[in-house]
């Protein structure tokens, strides 16, 4: 059954789940969550390497779901708020926050847009192109050795780089739907070798002079070079490890499961240790729209439970759509 991450809640409610675990299909445990107490633990060790996902990927997934924030998140929010409010009244220039490519990979752009109620943001078209280019890469067993349960899933499908890029692209599209967006573009100068930082800086400099740009980047080189070009910058630190226990609401747990599935291609969900469902983010014929809508394929182990779930999820979706119609009546 093709579902959205939010539909995982329906399954967990049906099972009255208190504790869940997310594992790789090889059995390696990645994270566990205490649904009732709204906490999440990273079960994989920092030494996890060479598996289909490594510890660094798990950290990225926690950032994607908003559970883990950059160490300087509070300062960043403050910088953005100051930039978008005070500057406007003092100088009359329209303040705009620009994001580098990485902020769409980690979903931080989306979280920040929401938290600061950002009115507009900008990004370089070069960032978008870079993501689009990476989305094309196919999985190769030589470049990306995968454990046995993953080989048939990945055969002929997206590589890990491509899957991550598709997650980033979906984030970019979501951000564009949330608020006003400016896509900055600069022509590539012939005769010079292509450099992403150069291109991002050049495109931001092409934006109208009436805009007051603040570039948020996790790339120290880009931050330095942009500052050298008189573009205001704020450096976003990247978390390198997760605390033993993190606060996580259900929505964030669902997004973590989705992200882990997308990064690894498939994960197993166990409830109180009992294998309950396999969650695939990759399957033959998955469409671009399904990637953009963050769809997953849910395979529930127990057929009886699967049938009940199907009815319930279908009805919940229909009811949700009916309720949406009501907003026009009120």
């Amino acid at each position: 059954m093709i579902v959205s991450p939010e539909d995982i809640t329906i399954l967990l409610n049906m099972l009255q789940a208190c504790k869940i675990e997310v594992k790789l299909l090889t059995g390696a445990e990645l994270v566990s969550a205490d649904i009732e107490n709204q906490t999440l633990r990273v079960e994989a060790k920092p030494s996890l390497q060479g598996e289909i996902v490594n510890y660094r990927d798990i950290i990225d997934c926690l950032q994607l779901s908003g559970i883990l924030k950059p160490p300087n998140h509070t300062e960043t929010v403050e910088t953005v708020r100051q930039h978008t409010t005070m500057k406007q009244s003092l100088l009359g220039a329209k303040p705009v926050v620009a994001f580098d490519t990485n902020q769409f990979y980690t979903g931080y752009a989306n979280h920040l847009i929401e938290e600061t109620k950002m009115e507009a943001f900008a990004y370089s078209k070069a960032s978008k192109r870079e993501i689009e280019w990476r989305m094309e890469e196919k999985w190769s067993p030589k470049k990306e050795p995968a454990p046995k349960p993953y080989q048939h899933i990945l055969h002929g499908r997206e590589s890990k780089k491509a899957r991550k890029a598709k997650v980033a692209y979906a984030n970019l599209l979501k951000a564009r739907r949330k608020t006003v967006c400016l896509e900055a573009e600069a022509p590539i100068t012939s005769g010079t070798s292509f450099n992403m930082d150069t291109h991002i800086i050049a495109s931001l400099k092409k934006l109208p002079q009436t805009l007051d740009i603040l570039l948020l980047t996790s790339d120290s080189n880009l931050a330095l070079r942009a500052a050298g070009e008189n573009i205001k910058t704020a450096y976003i630190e990247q978390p390198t490890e997760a605390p033993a226990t993190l606060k996580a609401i259900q929505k964030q747990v669902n997004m973590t499961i989705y992200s882990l599935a997308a990064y690894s291609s498939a994960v197993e969900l166990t409830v109180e240790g009992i294998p309950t469902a396999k969650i695939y983010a990759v399957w033959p014929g998955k469409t671009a729209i399904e990637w953009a809508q963050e769809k997953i394929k849910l395979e529930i182990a127990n057929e009886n439970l699967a049938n009940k779930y199907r009815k319930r999820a279908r009805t919940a979706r229909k009811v949700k759509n009916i309720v949406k119609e009501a907003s026009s009546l009120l």
Partner: protein
Amino acid sequence: MQALVQTVGVHPSAVLTSYWAIVEEEAVKPEVIVYICTTQSEKLTPILRRATAEISQHVFGFTPKTVCRKVNEARVLETVMNIKMLILNYKEKGYNVYVDITPSRKTLSASALKAAIEAKADGIYYLLLKNPQYIGEIYPYIPRHQLKLVKI
């Protein structure tokens, strides 16, 4: 035979969420659902009918009849009397009558509560949403531990 009296406020999701919770957690399968509406919330009844039919038929396998009773919630005592008479009427016909006071505004919920107590309704329900971030969500999308169906 069972009848469910539900007060209706401005959020259809609140009516549907508490309906779904009552049917699921209390195994109440009403033959009749009576919506207690105001002039404003009356507009929601076609939507509520459709959504309730979806939930009842496709998840629980029964089809309730729905009725709408309009009240003036500003006239509290009159509203209490109207709802009380309605409950007693159904009881006379042999129905077990359950009253859900969750979805409406304070005056209407308070009126329904008083009426239900005075008419000795068979069950009075209030669905407690522990976290306001789930306001507007439908029952299956709200984590179970964030809800508590209170039987008064």
